[in-house]
């Protein structure tokens, strides 16, 4: 028995699906710079970040039907990417996962330390900020334990809401808030340790 010819409905459905798919892929590609920006700081190296982004896009393009149009596509892509990163066992992990208590200081600690290194009374904030080199900031962030770092990267670098970060990392929103609070303090302690001394 020969296959029946596609009906007009089938043709219309297939054409719509092809259009939806093209639109999905275009929208996902438009977000790739932002996805890479986050991936680069979640991953341990540039090569690893590139691999992760490529794998995430391969998986996203394969499972595009699971994406609900109208929801946050950037968060959906990052969810795939962070899951892949966990699957890979964070091979390039460079920072310890336990946080010694003395690795945290209050939120004013960094400013106080940097200000004490700047000559002159009452220096303005820009001069204080100049004590931090770009390399020292990159290193200080890389040395934050990954659970805290992932949250900082999503919220402070990727500019995701707490709710989106919670969904991406599959953790409660309260955990996002506490990791962010502690993580920023650890980051500032690291920055204080790496500040330019002159």
């Amino acid at each position: 028995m020969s296959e029946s010819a596609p009906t007009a409905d089938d043709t219309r459905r297939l054409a719509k699906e092809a259009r939806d798919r093209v639109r999905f892929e275009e929208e996902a590609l438009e977000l790739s710079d932002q996805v890479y920006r986050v991936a680069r700081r979640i991953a341990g190296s540039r090569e690893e970040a590139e691999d992760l982004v490529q794998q995430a896009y391969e998986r996203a393009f394969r499972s595009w039907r699971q994406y609900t149009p109208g929801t946050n596509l950037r968060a959906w892509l990052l969810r795939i990417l962070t899951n892949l990163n966990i699957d890979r066992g964070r091979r390039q992990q460079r920072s310890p996962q336990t946080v010694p208590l003395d690795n945290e200081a209050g939120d004013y600690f960094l400013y106080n330390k940097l200000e004490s290194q700047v000559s002159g009374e009452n220096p303005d904030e820009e001069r204080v900020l100049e004590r931090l080199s770009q390399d020292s900031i990159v290193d200080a962030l890389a040395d934050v334990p990954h659970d805290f770092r992932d949250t900082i990267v999503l919220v402070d670098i990727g500019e995701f809401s707490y709710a989106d970060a919670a969904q991406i990392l599959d953790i409660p929103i309260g955990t996002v808030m506490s990791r962010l609070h502690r993580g920023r303090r650890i980051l500032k302690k690291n920055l204080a340790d790496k500040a330019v001394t002159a």
Partner: protein
Amino acid sequence: MIDWCDKCEEMMQPFLDGTLSDLEVAEAQSHLDKCSWCAKRYHFEERLRHYVRVAVTEPMPAELKAKLAALRTPLN
């Protein structure tokens, strides 16, 4: 007696994240208006967040962008 500088330090992150209650914002703001020591540290934190975001942002390599574009489903 409340040490308002200590309290302001504790409230800095939620204040800048916009997650304090209206009452807490009013309390923090009232202290910041009077205390240049805390105000300076709040302003520094705002600048620091921006500075960190810019410092750690690397442009995506062009080759990666091309690889991603090549993953698109070919049009028939």
